[in-house]
């Protein structure tokens, strides 16, 4: 049973202005949580803190009761998968090569073992990207790249998935595909998935929990219908909306002029 607990966390980029303040959160396994909020609310920062990339000045992040920052980078790497990636140009990297780097925290041998290769294959299958496994990564479209990025996290077989805008650049079909898959995988492998998405409705369709952030502080936590109320949305985004609740299509938020 994996659990994340964030206790009274605060983070600042320049020691003056706090990007995140008074964060108290709990995440449980087999749950998909989406962090929503306007630009600059601190969503990516929160993810990076969870990914052990940024160190919070205040408070602690506990993973299964262990302080994240007391763990070694290496141990954390085995558990956490974070999606941000920079694709270098001119190196002629093939997708398979890129994905195999994800196995490094688990690799016991200098070169990939069969187990590692299997994990990579599986991850490609899960995102439906097998057919471009041998393509050069520079030549992928943004949509294809997005799927590969998710595959790279899956290949690592982490317990925690941190996805920053996983649906960016994808058309509606792939958006739904990916979110469905993420939900499936989370449930199947009992992972903790935390992601950021812009589309409120998609967030409501595929998340178990929603966290609404504004200016680094939590406005509301709860299930999608609980959080996505006109009052909350107006407070957070500064626009008047009408909310339609549809069990099949999730929570539909309609901005009013």
């Amino acid at each position, binding site marked *: 049973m994996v659990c994340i607990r964030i206790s009274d966390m605060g983070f600042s980029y320049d020691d003056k202005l706090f990007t995140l303040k008074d964060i108290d959160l709990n995440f449980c396994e087999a749950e998909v949580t989406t962090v929503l909020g306007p630009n600059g609310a601190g969503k990516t920062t929160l993810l990076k803190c969870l990914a052990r*990339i940024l160190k919070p000045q205040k408070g602690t992040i506990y993973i299964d009761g262990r302080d994240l920052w007391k763990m070694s*980078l290496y141990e954390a790497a085995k558990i956490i998968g974070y999606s941000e990636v920079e694709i270098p140009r*001119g190196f002629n990297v*093939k997708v398979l090569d890129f994905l195999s780097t994800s196995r490094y925290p688990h690799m016991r041998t200098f*070169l990939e073992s069969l187990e590692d290769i299997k994990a990579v294959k599986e991850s*490609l299958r899960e995102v439906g990207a097998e057919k471009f496994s041998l393509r050069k990564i520079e030549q992928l479209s943004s949509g294809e790249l997005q799927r590969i990025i998710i595959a790279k996290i899956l290949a690592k077989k982490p317990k925690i998935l941190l996805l920053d805008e996983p649906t960016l650049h994808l058309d509606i079909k792939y958006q739904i595909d990916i979110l469905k898959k993420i939900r499936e995988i989370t449930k199947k492998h009992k992972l903790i998935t935390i992601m950021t998405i812009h589309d409120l409705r998609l967030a409501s369709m595929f998340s178990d929990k929603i966290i609404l952030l504004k200016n680094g502080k939590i406005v509301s936590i709860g299930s999608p219908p609980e959080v996505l109320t006109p009052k909350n949305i107006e407070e957070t985004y500064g626009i008047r909306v009408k909310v339609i609740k549809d069990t099949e299509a999730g929570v539909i938020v309609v901005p009013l002029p």
Partner: protein
Amino acid sequence: MDYAEKYFQEKKRKFFLVLAFLSVLLTFTFIFSLNIGSSNVGLLEILTLMSTSSKTSSTLINIVYNLRLPRTLAAMFIGVLLAISGVLIQSVTRNSLAEPFLLGLSSGALTFMALAIIIVPSIALSLHYVSVISFIGALIAFTLTLTLSEAIGGSATSLILAGLAVTAGFSGLSSFLAFIVQSKLNMPFLILLLGSLSQILRGHVVMLALVSIAGFTLALIMAKRLNAIIYGDEHALQLGYNPKTVRIFASMLAALLTSVSVAIAGIIGFIGLIVPHMSRLIIGSDNRYVVPLSALLGALVLCVSDIFVRIASEGLAIGEIPVGAVTSVLGAPFFAYLLLTKVKA
């Protein structure tokens, strides 16, 4: 469904095949190099004469052992140094056009060497001290390039531009200083501006061997880390590596390898650019394969270049052509070609 297994298997197989082929090629080149020279001494003759101990045979052995062997070995080791340095720098800067010469390391190293010799002429006697000074120069130049690159935008192109600026600056400086060293202190220095293997001594070869073997080993150990940092700091972090540490160590190692080669043979450019590229063309961009392949290829390329220099100098009788000139003649068009194909995209 075993496409992935096949891919990795075949890569491994291809790697060992190419490695074997290049090793054989290198061996032949080595033997060939020992056969080249203005006196008619062939390796076969050496081996047969080694059994006898007449004075004549010892002279011929002297030629091969003291003149050709050090030079051949030096060419190979320096080729390794420059190639590995190139691989390291390309991974650190995430830029396939990066190279120790083009980012100013070589020129910076030479500038500081010249400065040190002018201030304390006796330092020229100790290769050890000269190498340390050279190392500092390379690091300073690299830091300058990186800083300048950040200041003008931090993109891949900025890096190349910054590198060219720093290289140009230090080249001018080192030319000026080299001139002073040569004319006022009567020490051969100008030839180092274009790199030459003609002044290689036996003592140099030992140091080259040590540093290149150490450098190669370290780079190979770091290969996975180098693979990781290419994809960004966050990616490296979530693989369990600290990108800052990797970058600092790799940069220092690259500077060390470059500076030792500059201290002994002067500025030989473009090997660090061409060789890793060729390796990647053959085997893909996995540094676990690229590092050893580049090492072999680097040794081969420089050795062949030097053989060419020795034959040409003999035939044209115009004095020794600096080997750095040859690598520039080959390397500059290659660089231009890369710019055209990569930077446009």
